[in-house]
């Protein structure tokens, strides 16, 4: 199969949409002040130099096309030389990646290449597996995540899973659960109502469910359930959102809605998405990391990784993306 240059349709669509609406309404809500210590750090300086890949700063088209219409990305997390093991098997081999607010990082690669394991290590969900252990460091705003309480870390770095997994309770309670302290029942429903509706609104679900928030969440359709899971994750006001193949169990229309959602959320959150769908990685990702057998093969802007991959393996893998 020959290597086609990716069709620019959707990319242009993004650019034109964002330049027509000026300034983007979300832009004003970016909590720049929330992370004063990091703002000054030039974001590109933090990009690790993956062996063999030319420095991204040096590549003319490094910045994605739509980046021009956005505020500069802020470094939030750094994955530094991280290796992950299940028992003695090395699943992820010394991977380094930056995670920035305002950008979507897409992890792609064949099944079993360690991308989900890497994603789960970002908020220390890997620790739930008894045999798993990690070397290297992952920092959040410069602080080693190992220094943070897992509960605090996971409030700030939330995750949405492959299978929609709302809790078997009402739509309202699903979102309210994230807002309440551990197992408490307080604050009461009336007080939480505004926050719950806000979270549902940000997840683009409110209009469909606002008539009856007390409906059992498991009665929703698959796509609605997944957006509820995103709303639930957003309710806790996370700073980083991890998405583990969020669309793989959904129909195309629902997938499209989730992609649109990611597009709006990238302004206020740092987003990392694992996906098997290369088209999706291209559409939603600003930067794409290609992993193979636990190694990070190539890390570049979506534009460059799909149109001009440097490594042969990457070329092989992405060549089928836009056939």
């Amino acid at each position, binding site marked *: 199969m020959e290597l086609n240059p990716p069709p620019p349709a959707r990319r242009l669509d993004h650019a034109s949409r964002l330049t027509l609406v000026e300034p983007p309404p979300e832009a004003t809500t970016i909590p720049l002040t929330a992370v004063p210590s990091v703002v000054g750090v030039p974001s590109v300086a933090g990009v690790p130099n993956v062996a063999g890949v030319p420095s991204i700063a040096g590549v003319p088209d490094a910045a994605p096309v739509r980046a021009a219409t956005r505020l500069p990305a802020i470094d939030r997390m750094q994955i530094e030389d991280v290796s992950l093991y299940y028992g003695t098997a090395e699943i992820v081999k010394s991977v380094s990646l930056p995670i920035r607010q305002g950008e979507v990082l897409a992890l792609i690669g064949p099944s079993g290449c360690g991308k989900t394991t890497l994603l789960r290590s970002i908020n220390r969900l890997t620790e739930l597996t008894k045999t798993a252990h990690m070397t290297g460091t992952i920092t959040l705003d410069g602080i080693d995540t190992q220094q943070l309480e897992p509960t605090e870390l996971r409030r700030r770095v939330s995750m949405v899973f492959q299978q929609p997994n709302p809790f078997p309770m009402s739509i309202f309670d699903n979102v309210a659960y994230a807002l309440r302290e551990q*197992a408490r029942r307080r604050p009461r429903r009336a007080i939480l109502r505004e926050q719950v509706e806000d979270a549902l609104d940000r997840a683009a679900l409110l209009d469909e469910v606002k008539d009856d928030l007390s409906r059992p969440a498991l009665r929703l359709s698959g796509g609605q359930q997944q957006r509820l899971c995103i709303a639930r994750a957003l309710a806790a006001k996370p700073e980083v959102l991890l998405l583990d193949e969020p669309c793989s169990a959904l129909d195309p229309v629902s997938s499209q809605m989730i992609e649109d959602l990611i597009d709006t959320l990238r302004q206020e959150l740092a987003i990392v998405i694992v996906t098997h769908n290369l088209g999706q990685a291209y559409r939603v990702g600003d930067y794409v990391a290609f992993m193979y057998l636990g190694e990070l093969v190539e890390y570049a802007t979506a534009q460059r990784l799909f149109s001009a991959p440097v490594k042969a393996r990457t070329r092989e893998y992405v060549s089928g993306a836009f056939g």
Partner: protein
Amino acid sequence: MSTTSATPTRRPTASAWRLRDRLGLALAWFLGLLFCAICAALIIYLAIQGINYLHPAMLFENPKIGYNQSESGGFLAPLLGSLICAAIAMLVAIPAGIGVAVWLSEYARPRALARLAESTVEMLAGTPTVVLALFGLVVFRSRALAFLSQSAGGVVLGKSFFSAGLMLSLLGLPFVVTSTREGLTAIPNHVREASYALGKTKIATIRRVLLPAVRPSVIAGSSIGTGHVIGDTAIIVMLLGNTYTLQGAGGLPLLSSLRGTGLTLTSYVYDNAPTGALNHPQQAYAAAAIMILLVLVLNLVVDVFARKARRQRWN
């Protein structure tokens, strides 16, 4: 689609089956229908007897010592006795059973202890209740537990609603444990992880996600357990005293009844059966009909909630 695939063969008709298959099928049908027939016969027979002998007044009248059946009163006391026993037993068995199930399913460390607990529950489920009753007599006659029953001349009798109820809770426990555990196992791991990913602790996840999710399973298991508790006779006869009415012990109104002896529908039926001490079969049939009714209602509850538990599915 393609021409290479074999043309679909016709589904074999019954006559084309091998003889062994046909005999097997016939046997399955026969046994199925036989059990339905036995069950139907039991219920119809008891219903007819119940309608013949059961008077509403019997539900509100205590048993009396009488020479013939019409003078021997109703079974208010045994009915109350059954309900009290079931209440005590399940009040203990449900929380304990949920606790055991949660520990077995969510913690289960160290492994050896988990295996021990698991086989203990299994053994408990298989122990004849007569053995439980015998063991209960030893336990509840000890001086330390004298407050649970009456004492006479310095000897702890060990027979009371407390003793019987607590021993019956051991009978109900395995059903609660098994059903709750099944419910917990059916919850996919990513649901737990979704809760952890929101920054919740394990305890909070169990309390607010897992336990509400297994509620139908808990109710189903508890109902099965209640049915067995209500239906047990050995523990009642040996640990409840099997007096002909409820006999309180001591001053406090409710506590005295619970420390006192009494009887239940099962022991009432046992005593009034043609082979029993009292031999008033009409009373026995009437009480048995009530008991079957109770068990049918409980089974209905089990069915409804078991179905509810099965319907709760993550894709």
